[in-house]
C-alpha cells in the first residue's frame, strides 16, 4: 500500500508520562494492553477506535503513547485511571504532549539511582531500605515484588 500524501494523513499527538515508582520495569506490550483496556473501558469501542492509541515506547521510567490529535485529554484520563500493569502497582504521571517525538525529549530526565540503605525493622517486620532523591525511602519486605512501604528519611528516624 502506498503512503498517503501528508495532507490526507491523520494528525497525531504524542503524550509523555512518567512511571511511578520510577524503577519499575514494564514490558511495552503489557503497558499497551493495560492502557488500551482502560481506554476501551472508559470510552467504549467507538471511542477507542477514534483515539487510535498506541504505546510508542515504555522504557527507563517513561512511557510515550501516540493518539489522534484532539484526543490527548482522553489518553491522559486513561493514564490517570491506570493503577496496575502486569501485577505491578504503578501510577502514570502525564508530563507533556507534543506533535513530535523530538518535542518530548526535553522533558525526559535520567532516572535516579536506588541506593540501598540497609535493613530496618517496622512493627516487627524487616524491610530493606532504598533511598531516592528528596529524602524519599522505599522499603521492601523480602524481594521487590512483596509488600512495600513508602516513607521519607524523617519517618525512619521516628521508628
Amino acid at each position, binding site marked *: 500500500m502506498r503512503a498517503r500524501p501528508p495532507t490526507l494523513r491523520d494528525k497525531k499527538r504524542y503524550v509523555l508520562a512518567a512511571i511511578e515508582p520510577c524503577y519499575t520495569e514494564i514490558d511495552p506490550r503489557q503497558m499497551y494492553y493495560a492502557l488500551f483496556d482502560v481506554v476501551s473501558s472508559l470510552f467504549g469501542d467507538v471511542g477507542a477506535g477514534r483515539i487510535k492509541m498506541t504505546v510508542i515506547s515504555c522504557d527507563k521510567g517513561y512511557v510515550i503513547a501516540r493518539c489522534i490529535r484532539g484526543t490527548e485529554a482522553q489518553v491522559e*484520563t486513561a493514564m*490517570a485511571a491506570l493503577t496496575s500493569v502486569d501485577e505491578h502497582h504503578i501510577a502514570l504521571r*502525564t508530563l507533556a504532549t507534543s506533535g513530535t517525538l523530538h518535542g518530548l525529549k526535553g522533558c525526559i530526565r535520567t532516572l535516579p539511582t536506588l541506593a540501598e540503605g540497609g535493613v530496618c525493622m517496622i512493627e516487627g517486620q524487616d524491610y530493606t531500605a532504598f533511598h531516592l532523591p528528596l529524602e*524519599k525511602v522505599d522499603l521492601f519486605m523480602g524481594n521487590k515484588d512483596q509488600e512495600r512501604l*513508602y516513607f*521519607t528519611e524523617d519517618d525512619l528516624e521516628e521508628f
Partner: protein
Amino acid sequence: MIATDACVYPYPAGDSSIRRMALEARKLGFDSIVCAGAPESSEVAGVRVLAGVIISRSNMKEVISAVRKEGRHAEIIMVNAGEERFNRSVVSYHGIHILRGISHVKRGFDHVGAKTAASSGVAVDFDLSEIIQKNGHARQKVLSCYADILRLQRHYGFRLTLSGGAHSYLDLRSVRDMTNLCALFGMKKDEVAEALANVGRLLSPEQVVEVIR
C-alpha cells in the same frame, strides 16, 4: 487553600507515610491534603496536612456522640453516607464538614438533602478512587450517581469536595488528572477548581460583614 485533596489514608491505613504523601501532593499541584486518622494538623514540605476523621455510624445519635468524642482533635469531620433520611440529618448538622461515600447507597441524596446541605454549608464529597478502581457496571453506576449529584449541585449550589481516596502515594492524582476524570461525568474545569478549593472554605466559612462604629 487553593487545591485540597479531601481524603487520603496514610500509613498505617495505607502504605505511604504522611510526609511522603505530602511530598507527592506538592508535586501534583496540591497545597493541602486531608489525612484521615492523622493525629494532628501540620505543615510538611509546604503542604498543609489537615487532620481528618471519618465517622461511620448507622444512626444520627451515634454520629453526634462520635463527633463530640473523635472530632475534638480533627479539623475536618467526615461522615460516611447511609440511607436517605440519615443523609438529610447529617447534612443539617453544623458540626460535620463533609458527607462522603454517597455513591455506595442507592438514591441516598435527593433535592431535599441538597437544599439542606446548601443552607447548612455541609459539603458532599466525590471520591475519584471509585472511578479509578472500579470497572464496568460498578463504574457506570458511580459515574451516573456523580452526574446526578452534580445536577443537584448546579441547581441548589451546595458545596462539593474532591478526594482521591489514596491509600498509597501511587494512588494520588494531579489536579489536571482530577479535572480529566471529573470531565467523565460532566464536571467543568471551573467547577473542579471550586470543588478543590472548598475544603478551605469549610474551615473559614463566609460570614456577614458587620460594621462596628
